[in-house]
């Protein structure tokens, strides 16, 4: 029997009451461990760079040999088989036809091979396709992407971070900017860590996906912080909840949105990943789908369990908030003597069905997900904590 306290229902109402911010030590520990693992992996396992970064070998096979015409697919299959015979994990890019007519030949790029490996591969291709080995030529190719693109991408990243920090400081405040950046850095580190640990190939598309995550991760955080800002506006005027509690309320209120957003954003990316990896095997789609899926997934989670806790931690250091928190707690301690379980006096008028659910033991602490206002009809936000309306 579904009742009003079923998690889904509470989620739907934004009253999930999950104590997220209160457990911030746990989140910080988890995040710290993950970051250490990621960084350790960077050094120990390093990254598996694709042809586009590390350079590679290129084989070209003429399209017409002795009156025989070879197809593009046949060349690709032959090269892939041959390369994988000597180097099972090597990346092999799709074949490309260069030129037309009698001059045409097919080029296939693979991960860098040694000289002996190359001659083995050539031999295998020649046998497979039935062409003379001398007709097949091989070359070393440099990185197509090279340092320039990466350097510029990093420069862009740096400029973006500076600008976005300025923007967040102006439109929010510096603590929020710091928390948002911390969560962004966490996203990037963990995503890179996953790549390093699992040994996924890092291709240009991975980098592109990585840059896409930037915008997305911050976007998500901003939405949560927007709600936090709304909930905590004028918080020091009242004395019902601490900053951390107000933040937790905001997280709970936006939880459904975060989950919805995460789902809606990950569904299409999942489609890309599914098609790319499932149906086509390796390739651009898989590279992009993978990095986006990992990064956006981490982004959604970290905006919930990392950004907000960091923010509340930073805010708790602020003198004004510190004294406010102390006041709230003192008042609550004083009252807990004469108030029985069942809620605060100040909020007795606002109770909804869900408020009747036995909430946190002790009852004096407002449940993290408790709504400040929940009148069924009319009046609306009559009893909102001060300053919440705009």
């Amino acid at each position, binding site marked *: 029997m579904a009742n009003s306290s079923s998690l889904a229902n509470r989620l739907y109402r*934004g009253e999930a009451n999950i104590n997220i911010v209160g457990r911030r030590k746990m989140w910080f520990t988890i995040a710290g461990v993950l970051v250490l693992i990621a960084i350790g992996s960077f050094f120990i396992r390093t990254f598996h760079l694709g042809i586009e970064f590390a350079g590679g070998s290129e084989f070209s096979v003429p399209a017409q040999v002795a009156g025989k015409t070879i197809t593009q697919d046949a060349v690709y299959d032959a090269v892939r088989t041959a390369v994988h015979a000597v180097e099972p994990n090597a990346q092999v890019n799709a074949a490309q036809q260069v030129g037309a007519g009698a001059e045409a030949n097919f080029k296939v790029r693979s991960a860098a091979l040694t000289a002996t490996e190359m001659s083995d591969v050539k031999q295998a291709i020649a046998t497979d396709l039935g062409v003379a080995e001398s007709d097949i030529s091989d070359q070393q190719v440099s990185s197509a992407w090279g340092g320039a693109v990466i350097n510029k*991408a990093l420069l862009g990243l740096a400029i973006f971070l500076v600008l976005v920090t300025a923007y967040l400081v102006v439109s929010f405040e510096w603590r929020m900017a710091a928390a948002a950046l911390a969560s962004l850095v966490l996203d990037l580190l963990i995503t890179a860590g996953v790549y390093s640990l699992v040994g996924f190939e890092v291709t240009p*598309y991975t980098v*592109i996906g990585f840059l896409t995550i930037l*915008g997305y991760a911050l976007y998500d955080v901003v939405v949560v912080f927007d709600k936090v800002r709304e909930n905590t506006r004028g918080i020091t005027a009242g004395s019902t909840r601490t900053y951390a509690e107000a933040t937790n309320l905001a997280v709970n209120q936006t939880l459904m949105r975060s989950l919805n*957003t995460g789902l809606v954003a990950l569904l*299409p*990316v999942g489609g890309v990943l599914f098609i790319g990896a499932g149906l086509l095997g390796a390739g651009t789609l898989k590279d992009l*789908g993978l990095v986006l899926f990992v990064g956006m997934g981490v982004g959604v989670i970290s905006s919930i369990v990392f950004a907000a806790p960091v923010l509340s931690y930073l805010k708790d250091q602020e003198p004004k908030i510190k004294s406010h928190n102390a006041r709230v707690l003192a008042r609550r301690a004083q009252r807990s003597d004469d108030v029985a379980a069942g809620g605060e006096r100040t909020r007795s008028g606002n109770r909804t069905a869900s408020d009747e659910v036995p909430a946190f033991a002790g009852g004096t602490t407002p449940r993290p997900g408790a709504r400040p206002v929940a009148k069924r009809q009319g009046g*609306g936000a009559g009893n909102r904590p001060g300053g919440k309306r705009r």
Partner: protein
Amino acid sequence: MHPGRQLGVLGLVFVVLYLLVFFAAGASGSWKQRLEPKLGLDLIGGTQATYIASQQGAPPNKEDMETAREIIEQRVNALGVSEAEVVIQSDNTIVVSLAGKAEEQLKSLAQAANMRFRLLTAVTGDVSSVAVDPPSAAPSAPASGAPAASGSPSVKPSSGAPKASTGGQGGGAEAPSPSVTPSAEPSAAAPSASAAAPAPVTADIKAQREAVAKKVGAAWAAAEKLTGPVDLTTDPTAGLPFKAFASLTGAEVNALDPAMQFNVPTISCKQLDQRPNGSIDDVNSTVVACYNGAKVQLDKAEVVGDDISQAAPQLDSTTGQWVVSLDFKSEGQKKWAELTRKAFNAGATEPCYIAASAFGSSGETHCSVAVVLDKEVISAPQIQAVLTGQSQITGDFDAVSAKKLADQLNFGAIPVTFQAGPAQTITATVGDQQLEAGLLAAAIGLGLVAIYAFFYYRMLGLVIFLSLGLSALLTFGALVFLGRSIGFTLTLAGIVGFIVSLGVAADSFVIYFERLKDEIHEGRSPRSAVPRAWQRAKRTILSANAITIMCAVVLYIVSIGQVQGLAFALGLSTVLDLLVVFLFRHPIMTVLASTKAFLSPRVSGLGRVLRSSQTEEPVSSRVKEA
């Protein structure tokens, strides 16, 4: 604001955009062709050109190759947002691939763009054909005399010098076609000065010279004795001993000492033009080039392209001609002022003065400074003042060539020289299969989002779906139009970028609808909840999208290649999403809010928050699955 008005604005945007798509920026062909976006290299293949590099005859070093690659990449990217691929192959080859048919664009890519400013020190005619075969000039003249003929009209006849190009043009038998003659004669002294100290040459060049000496036989000895250009005006047959030189290739001519290139009359401008790229780049040596149909000898380069800090194309308002304006770096400015002072103050006995007066104008004569780009003398104006500020290169520019030159100067010189191979067509790296898969993924993504939206928001899902459709149409139109107007090409990465933005676009709905739910939960009627929720959601959506747009703009400005394409796709779709949010979704919601059905759980799903859950079992169980 009245909802109708906003919808009207959106309609107008659509009409304008699709008018642009169908009629603007060189739209042509059938209706279907006008709707084709420009696809990238990885999707439709393109054109590939190979450039084999060398550095003073030897294979270039690694760093220079990498620098060259980067410069070429920048030049390609200056052509538009078209994500070219530039790869170094083996140790001396650069392969450039561009989407679509791009032979034209590939042609000038690997030019070194070495800019040199050199004092013009001597002039002689380009008279090879006559020199080789004076008695029967007529039949042979039009062929090899052509360069001279086409060039000479631009040498101002006003100079009074009898340098009319009768040799080439008229085909007259004995017609001596000396160029700048009498006045050029004294210049013989000048080159000899520089020839006196021939630059030390590499073993490689030495070997080439020996080969040439063998080839031309007796003529070599005669040529070595020359101290100045052979004057054919006085003796039309004087060129005969050097006949063998006329058959040399450009590379062979290049191996010769500059003085010999200049002095031997049978070496034509045509041959000089065939010299490999970079043949006259050496800043420390005197070089020979062709200018306005005459051979000119140019002094050491006092000022080079590296001294330029900024070049820009400019339309000169007084003459109506395109010029390239130059700002020098501070050190370069000093050198430039020094060079112009030297040219301006040169006395009548100095070789450059004599040479300049040969080309001369009727008025006061000053030395000319030749602006040399790679093998070509762009212009050689007489210096009318000591130039201490911004300067201009004048020449036969139009808007396109002026921009090209400015780009080349800005992006720097390629440190190696290239031999261009033929341009070939290449097939896509990714191909139909991945394109289809990408589109399929987009369709699946859209489908999943739609299913989720309908499931969770019921009829409001329709609003989401419709506006995603509108976004898609706008995006497509923008793609087609931008592809044609600024060369934006769609790659697979771009497609995935758009797929991602699908999720982000749908997210702005989630923000809005969750707000709406909040407001209704708090007891508002839909009619009042909609504007309030909009007010609040608007702010969130704007600040969140501002971040995405900022990210896109920064990446677009700073980065190159595929990252730029991604940034463009991201920014474009975000802006279009905002457009749809403001001009479609909000007005539609305003309209919907006034309908009765809006609150029904079956229709919008929003009403659910009003009821107590006990009576709404089926609903809550479904929510659980969500």
